[in-house]
């Protein structure tokens, strides 16, 4: 039968010493996946002779490659409670949001406005569905990367504090475990007595 234990702060922190920061790591990977979704939508819009068929797309490809590399690096870093790259991670997350105002927005202004203004335009018009998808994917990607960084930072900091407390003898995992076992035993004894009565 499953037992629900009350949260003990020492045990909660001690668990971190033996487990990976899977939440932060998964969020960073989600950020990476969202970025992939973004560029799949973007590159599907690139057709011969349209607005996107220009040199900025090459810069976007290069940036995407760099982002994917770093997103994976962030995922591995936060998994091991390492916060060395926290600021860089936040920067890359923010950059994903900034990117909304580059190619997606420019795509709309360059292709939709001439059509709306009645000016002759022979290229492909960026649809609202594609535009919204790109905005959502980029925003989500940025949010996941930043959230991953923040969670990674908080947990890594708390682990450091806990390790220092352990070293100084301020807390003892062994003592806590013994106390919890003793509490469990006395609770079991009370339950047994109540059952017998």
């Amino acid at each position, binding site marked *: 039968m*499953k*037992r*629900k*234990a009350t*949260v*003990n702060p020492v*045990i*909660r922190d*001690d*668990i971190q*010493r*033996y*487990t990976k920061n899977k939440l932060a790591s998964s969020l960073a990977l989600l950020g990476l996946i969202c970025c992939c979704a973004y560029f799949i939508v973007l590159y599907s819009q690139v057709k011969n002779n349209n607005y996107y068929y220009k040199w900025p797309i090459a810069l976007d490809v290069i940036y995407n490659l760099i982002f994917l590399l770093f997103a994976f690096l962030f995922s591995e870093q936060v998994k091991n409670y390492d916060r060395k790259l926290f600021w860089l991670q936040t920067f890359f997350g923010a950059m994903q949001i900034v990117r909304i105002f580059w190619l997606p927005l420019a795509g709309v202004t360059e292709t939709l406005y001439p059509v709306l203004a009645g000016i002759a335009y022979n290229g492909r018009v960026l649809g609202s569905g594609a535009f919204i998808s790109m905005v959502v994917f980029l925003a989500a990607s940025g949010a996941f990367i930043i959230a991953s960084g923040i969670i990674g930072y908080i947990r890594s900091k708390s682990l450091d504090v806990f390790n220092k407390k352990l070293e100084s003898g301020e807390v003892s*995992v062994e003592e806590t*475990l013994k106390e*919890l*076992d003793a509490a469990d035993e006395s609770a079991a004894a009370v339950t047994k007595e109540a059952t017998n009565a």
Partner: protein
Amino acid sequence: MPDVKIEHLDKVYDGGVQAVYDFNLDIKDGEFIVLVGPSGCGKSTTLRMVAGLEDITGGKLLIDGKDCTRLPPKDRDIAMVFQNYALYGHMTIYENMAFSLTLRKEDKQLIHRKVMAAAEILDLKSQLNKKPKQLSGGQRQRVAMGRAIVRNPKVFLFDEPLSNLDAKLRGSMRREIMLLHKKLNATMMYVTHDQTEALTLADRIVCMSMGHVQQIGKPIELYEHPANTFVATFIGLPPMNMFEGKIENGKFVCDLFEYPLNDEQKSALAEYEGQPVIMGCRPENVTRSGNVKLTVTNNENLGMNSLIHGKIGGVKIVVAKFAEWCSFKEGDEIQIGFDEKMTHFFEMPKTTVNEKGEQTVTEYGKAIR
């Protein structure tokens, strides 16, 4: 910890080959049972039937009074430790030990407490962040045991857990398993072909051969009072010396020597007068005085004692174990005898001849007492 009751257990494989015949055993709460026997005797099959990894063809299995005969392994509340450790290479030791509880979606803090308690018992605390490949064989086997301990199962099953380890490590792990049993006071079933493990670990030994239980008893019972010729030769190292002969006028007579029986032996063997029987004597019960002439073929000095291999009448190979440093050379002739209190008599085994003309034993010679 619960009782385990095994009643008339049979295992017949699809091809019609029967691996286990009518296995009966009552395991008491906290008892350490060792199943011992040569390869192919059905000991691992029996253990796997208890674990639920093999279907039970016939019979009944009760764990803590609950009929588990047809229950899937996950519902039997048992834990098994395998010879090859079966650890997940990509997980850390902590994750390996916590894995079964994580699958059950137990509370993280409870999992942590159980893993830490098991690591403490097995002295694995400093290894928890390592991967299995970074550990030695003995440590890996301890992890496998830890994984079983955290589940707090009703019964622990061990399938030759020390067979992959070298002799020295096996010795230390054997002691650790013994201590573990004392600490946990758990019901354990342990399969091995190593009689040293069986004799040192077991509260009771189940000696098996050809799918049949040959004898169940305390280690000392199997050693001092073997039920048949198989147990007599399987338990004890070097194996018991066996001599075929006849009972004639209060003597055991064989081609090589005559052995006068004492009063107790005479009364036990009274109805075997003139009939063929087997006399057995362990190497450690061979004495340095007697009327049997032994020609030494090999002398192994082991420090505390010496193993003397020799022939009687130029034919029968006999091993004697003397508690002293001997300096016999090949070809030396010495007089030996047999400790009359420690000689055993058995009926002749029943044999049949198969289609290839080979003689096979169908029933081992029973002990005469």
